[in-house]
């Protein structure tokens, strides 16, 4: 499903100083996998996730999604892929504060002409039920706890029935119990839908949730384990 060929990402601080966030990394992720990417802060795991998602252009190398070179596509085609095939869960609060939980979940439909308001709202309600928040449909993000907000983000990520779910440290701001609840939810989604999940975390304890895990260090994959 996803193939990275000798991908590097370099951030230039000035003309002489550069940070090699990801270095000559090759990786293949098959459909239906639950990949956990671990590593310390600054190891390049979030950059690797962004490269996989096409959220940042590689300095060198190629990223293929379903055999298609992501960076040979136009901005419109890339945006369409992000909308139809990918679902994102970020570490930071990414709900729009002026929208209710339900409106936030339905938000990706404004970029998807396949959905009409008639189909988007029932789907959003259904997903809110799936994440156990059917009583919070009209709540604003500020009225929800951090765990509840992250559940809403998960529901939003699933709205367009993506093929790939990308989660960047989704539990880093949560307490241990909520972290377990969210990770159990990811596992359930993976089992029920068979969706491919790539989850980045600094916690090695979460590796047990995945079907495969890789560990990153200094911008490179230094170990890979199949569970």
């Amino acid at each position, binding site marked *: 499903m996803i193939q990275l060929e000798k991908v590097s990402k370099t951030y230039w601080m000035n003309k002489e100083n550069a940070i090699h966030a990801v270095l000559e990394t090759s990786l293949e992720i098959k459909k239906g996998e639950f990949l956990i990417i671990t590593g310390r802060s600054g190891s390049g795991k979030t950059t690797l996730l962004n490269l996989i998602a096409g*959220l940042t252009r590689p300095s060198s190398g190629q990223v293929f999604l379903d055999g298609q070179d992501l960076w040979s596509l136009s901005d419109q085609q890339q945006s369409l892929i992000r909308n139809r095939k990918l679902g994102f869960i970020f570490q930071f609060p990414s709900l729009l504060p002026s929208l209710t939980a339900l409106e936030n979940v339905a938000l990706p439909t404004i970029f998807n002409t396949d959905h009409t308001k008639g189909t988007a709202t029932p789907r959003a309600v259904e997903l809110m039920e799936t994440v156990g928040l059917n009583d919070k449909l009209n709540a604003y993000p500020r009225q929800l706890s951090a765990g509840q907000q992250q559940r809403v983000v998960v529901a939003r990520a699933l709205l367009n029935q993506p093929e790939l779910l990308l989660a960047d440290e989704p539990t880093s701001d949560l307490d241990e119990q909520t972290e377990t609840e969210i990770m159990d939810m990811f596992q359930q989604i993976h089992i029920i839908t068979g969706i491919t999940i790539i989850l980045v975390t600094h916690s090695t304890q979460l590796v047990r949730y995945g079907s495969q895990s890789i560990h990153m260090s200094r911008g490179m994959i230094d170990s890979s384990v199949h569970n």
Partner: protein
Amino acid sequence: MFLTFETAQDIARLSPQLALQPLVIPQDSISSVLVRLEPGTDPMAVSAEILRQLPGVTPITSPNMFQAYRQQMNGLLASILLVLGITLVLSGLLIGLVFSMAANERRREVGVLRAMGATRNFVLRSLLLEASILALEGGLAGISLTILVIFLFRNLIMHSFGFPFLLPNLGLLLIEILVGLVLALACVTLAAMIPAYRISHMEPALAMRE
């Protein structure tokens, strides 16, 4: 005193209430016509032509009659336009700066929208639409405030300057309001263009970074 026909008719219409003696101007009456010549036209030649073509009309050539007045007015107009131009440029720069700061604060939001499938053009259009709505709101607020100030202080202005305060007719006033709104819209949209373009063309991952 030279007035437009509309202004003269307005004065006549208001005179029964405001003047000691009402002013009566019969409809279609013209006592004199001011002929404005293109630069470089010979006034004497025009005068002779009027005399030839319109018997009974006495042309009076007065090339110097308004020269000093016109020079003063042109100087004043040029100064006003210069100040307005500088104000407009400074306003544009300030609006651009403020919009840049406001858009920068919402970089992460833009990054999230891009990740969800928003194209660069969608983000650019949204930011410019927001700027346009704010410009129209600001323009309308400014015009409303101007009308209020004129309404409240017109007597003070009349007494301070020592001449009557006359508004142009409604049609011209509406055109002036429309021009004001278009100018506000153009100024803000142009000022917002650079920051909006910069943020909409930023990589989503970079936009989401702190």
